């Protein structure tokens, strides 16, 4: 007899996380009094309130949030508009894929340093750096998806005697756009880390600056509470991007 799976098995990640949080709260608040391998939830809450009141947390969070989301939206729209042409270029000039590999050979921290020196710790510098990072990341996804396109599609292209430009337009680009949409949550995770790293190095704006201040002042409980908030934020953004990506793949609904 087929039965609907119970909710606990339906959402294994959420169930596991909630269980860990519950156990952690019970152990640290009630059982392990006087011994704190990790800060208690009540201490974390107090620390977070301190950070909120004493540091420019709102401004920092807003800076990082705006810079990353605007950069992602900008580059995503760029690929939506020009992706077809980029696909044509790649088909006619496959050597271009080596451009997307340069992060492998030159560490990203070198580019971060270069932008910090060139733009003197301001928003424009970070925005341009994030845009460059995203163009390379999404370009890599585009190239990879074209290279890994199902063999059957290429056989159909040859067999149906399709015009190459028509094949790129109707098959390769549309298939690649699906992969770009699917990659958005993963790319955003990387983007947040890169943005925080840039801000940390540049000591300019955003969450990176706050993290740097917390480390310098050795406020580790504060740091831990900020990390938890960032984790929740990334989880929410991840779900939203995943939802967007899924909704736009209407044929899978």
């Amino acid at each position, binding site marked *: 007899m087929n039965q609907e799976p119970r909710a606990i098995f339906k959402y294994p990640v959420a169930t596991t996380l909630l269980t860990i949080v519950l156990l952690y709260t019970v152990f640290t608040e009630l059982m392990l009094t006087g011994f704190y391998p990790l800060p208690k939830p009540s201490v974390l809450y107090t620390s977070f309130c301190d950070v909120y009141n004493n540091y420019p947390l709102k401004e920092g969070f807003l800076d990082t949030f705006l810079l990353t989301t605007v950069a992602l939206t900008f580059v995503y729209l760029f690929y939506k508009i020009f992706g077809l042409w980029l696909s044509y270029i790649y088909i006619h000039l496959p050597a271009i894929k080596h451009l997307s590999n340069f992060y492998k050979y030159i560490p990203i921290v070198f580019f971060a340093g270069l932008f910090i020196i060139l733009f003197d710790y301001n928003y424009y510098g970070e925005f341009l750096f994030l845009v460059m990072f995203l163009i390379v990341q999404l370009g890599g996804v585009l190239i990879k998806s074209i290279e890994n396109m*199902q063999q059957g*599609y290429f*056989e159909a292209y040859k*067999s*149906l*005697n399709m015009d190459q430009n028509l094949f790129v337009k109707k*098959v390769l680009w*549309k298939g690649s756009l699906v992969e770009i949409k699917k990659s958005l949550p993963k790319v955003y995770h990387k983007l947040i880390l890169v943005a925080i790293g840039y801000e940390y190095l540049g000591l300019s704006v955003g969450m990176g600056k706050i993290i740097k201040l917390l480390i310098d002042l050795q406020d580790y409980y504060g740091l831990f509470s900020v990390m938890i908030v960032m984790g929740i934020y990334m989880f929410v953004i991840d779900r939203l991007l995943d939802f967007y990506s899924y909704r736009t793949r209407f044929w*899978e609904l």
Partner: protein
Amino acid sequence: MKLSGLIELENVSYHHENDLGESKIILDDISLRIEANTIVSVIAPKDAGLSSLMKICANLMEPSSGNYKNHINKEIIFLPTEPSTFPWLNVLDNMNVMFKENNEYLTREVLNQVGLDGYEDQFPLESSYSFRVRLALARSIITNPKLIVVDESFKYLVDEDRFDIYEKLKALQKIHNCSFLIGTRNLSEALLLSNRIILLAKDPCSIIDDFEVNFTQDSCVELVNNEDFLQKRNRIIDSYRYYKNHQMYRFTI
């Protein structure tokens, strides 16, 4: 005047070289000729190199030696094992993917011939496997080819759909005056569809028998109970028993 065949293979061999540089003979000295308005089935054991032979016949692969003569230029369509329909295009767009503009009248006519009329706006992944096979078949027919090479495209169909598609395929062949070259491991499929059956052996792949089949019934259900059908099937089984020290390959009967 004697009409020449659509395609001809003369002493065709195909060798495959692995990463270690070892060469393996896949096809050995195969000669065959496909005439106009026929359905020819090629039966081969598993891993015998049937797909390689089908791709060579469809002009998608070059033989290592021997001659491949194509008298119909690009009027050959290859139907792969997995129906390579594009999930982001609806049925109408999938059917017209090789044209700059959709030909709705012709599309509806061909869809009607494969039993998909009224499904123009549906997406392939919303539908069954049989639906996608029919769509791939219809897309092949719409280009008005002289020869359609089928590489085990019906092997994952359930019997109910299988018989219906066989009957539709036979009707399509008569309506469009095209030929089919069907690669299969299913003895009944070959007998139900073909005018001629070619048996291939394995290691290396070579022709061991080639005979005509002329059943008058169009209904598959009637055919499978026909005495002549059973005799022909036993002939195929006996041919394989006789070959290679009475070893019987595994086939779908």
